[in-house]
């Protein structure tokens, strides 16, 4: 699985510069956006029910919404039959649970990246809307731009988020048929071969 960054404390550590750069970019972008009258820092107004919100362990409701939207696009099906959706499998819930035991520095970076995806990345596609407010095709455009970004850190962030989402989806036996995968082979007899 890819990661976004790690804890650091030295000025010579390139990660410090990169993370601070990313944070500055986000903060600067948000401040600029505010200056432009677009309330991008808003983290309310998400349609997450109270029960789901109460169950979240690491993600804030708005972060959960971002993960859910990204997962829906990353796992968009190539055909309609026999493919469970990201929501069916509970990908965003898996990501929330996985973050619990993630090293705090990594978790912090991932959450920063979610903020970037939601509030700044759409600018790159000439949109003033938040990611979760975009149409699916526009969301795909934003994700494609992140995947192929010239900025290393954004590509790494994309890959990290993709890793968690793919893990959340393809761990589920309902998805094995997509791969033609028969699943774990526990309990094979001594002379047994798969």
């Amino acid at each position, binding site marked *: 699985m890819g990661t976004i960054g790690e804890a650091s404390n030295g000025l010579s550590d390139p*990660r410090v510069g990169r993370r601070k750069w990313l944070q500055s970019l986000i903060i600067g972008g948000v401040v600029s956006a505010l200056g432009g009258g677009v309330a991008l820092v808003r983290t309310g107004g998400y349609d997450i029910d109270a029960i789901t919100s109460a169950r979240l362990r690491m993600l804030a409701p708005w972060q959960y919404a971002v993960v859910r939207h990204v997962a829906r696009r990353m796992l968009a099906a190539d055909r309609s039959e026999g493919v469970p959706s990201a929501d069916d499998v509970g990908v965003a819930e898996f990501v929330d649970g996985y973050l619990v035991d993630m090293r705090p520095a990594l978790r912090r970076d991932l959450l920063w990246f979610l903020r970037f995806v939601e509030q700044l990345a759409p600018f790159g596609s000439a949109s003033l809307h938040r990611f979760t407010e975009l149409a699916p095709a526009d969301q795909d455009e934003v994700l494609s731009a992140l995947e192929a970004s010239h900025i290393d850190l954004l590509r790494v962030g994309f890959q990290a988020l993709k890793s968690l989402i793919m893990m959340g989806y393809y761990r589920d036996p309902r998805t094995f048929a997509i791969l033609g995968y028969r699943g*774990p082979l526990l309990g094979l007899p001594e002379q047994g071969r798969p």
Partner: protein
Amino acid sequence: MIVRGRELLRDFEGDADAVVVGTGAGGGMAVRELARAGLKVMALEEGGYHVPSDFTQREEEMIPLLFRERGATMTSDLAIRVLMGRAVGGSTIHNTNLCKRTPPEILDAWARKYDVVGCSEKELAPAFEQVEKDLSVREIPKEQHNANNQILARGMKALGFHGGPLKHNRVGCRESGFCELGCSYDAKQNVTKVLLPEAFAGPGQAVVMSDVRVTRIEHQSGVVSGVSGDATDARGRSIAGVKVRAKVVIVAASAIGTAALALASNLPDPNELAGRGLRLHPGAAIAGFFDERIDGVYGIPQSYECTEFLDFREGSQRRVWITTAFAHPIGAAISLPGFGASHMTLLRNYSRMAVLTAMVHDETEGRVTVDREGAPRIAYEMGEGDRAQLVLGLRGAARILLAAGAREVVLASIPPIRLKSPLDVERITQDAVRPHGLPMISVHPMGTMRFGENPKTSVVKSTGEHHGVRGLFVLDGSLFPTSIGVPPQISIYAMAKHLAKHAIERAR
């Protein structure tokens, strides 16, 4: 005896003749050798203790369980993922059981250029022979090569490439194919199955305590006196202090962990060599898509190799090793390029996919440092020469896949490179393998505490004992002054066995 540190109810203090930090190939061998010599030895392992029934063959469960940082360790520039074991048994729990001796050209170079004495091919041969016997090392017979490995062999044969079957340490293998997630069938002849039971049989006394994170090597006036650290719960939180006093300390916590512990312990290091010289043996994968069903996920992995681009003579520009590298579903989904419908379509060919990896016998020297908390940071920027080798290897692997009948070969670079003909392989360029341009992985970190006779160029002596701290030994892949160009498991076992006599002598 194995004690689970996570069950400690209060701080632990103990005495031993020797304490071993880390229980992978090096540490596990050290524990056995010292116990066999009649010594009281205590081993401390950061990871947990697991038995075969714990291994569920599920990636999302096993990767967090068996790998450091839940498998998320990266180089500082985030370009290379570094996988290291974190369990009683270390990486011997989840490796693919490859057993290739250290190439003699490498041992010769160590003697000539790094003043390593007593470790020639001839001098190490008895240790290798004994280890291979102990671990039941044998060549994987042709009938046990799975389809992915058969494709490698088929493509190589068509091209006239050199290579052949590999040797493994496995007995009673059911060929399920889940070696990298721990063996549910206990077929790995590894530290937990072979070495620790022999250590526990004595005549000395061996105790392994899991779930203990050693944070400091205790030393004063150039003499080691023990180690200290914390027992942790399942989430890595400290629950009790642990101190072990001993005349000898053996550190075998991987090239990353050993260097980090040395640095965090402020060992004498007048030339600032500790942590330097890191080699990662970095690699990348390339997939071929076939019309036939392959099911590469099942069966014995990595039973065949291509050595066409591997020449260990000094100055060689053929420094890349090719073997199979099939991924389980989550790994494949993460590795294949793109997302959405096109990504899912690609994954529908999972059962008709064969995957090869090219691993570079690297000359790039990275460095391990530590942050304020003592956590390791891995600086490694792959040099131009090594990138050229990776290109050479990936082109070779692509040619093999195409020669074996792949209708398409895909390299998951950004943007992805899709090849349909051998004439296309030139499209794999150094730009494609730039940092962050291609997912890269390291499973064989080496170096960082290099051995040799000259304290100006090495951290520890040829015996494994630290130049500046009496009684402190390093017995793992950190010792290696260069990459060895082959999977290091058996070399680490053999080197630890070969050098353990010096630690035994010091502990008596």
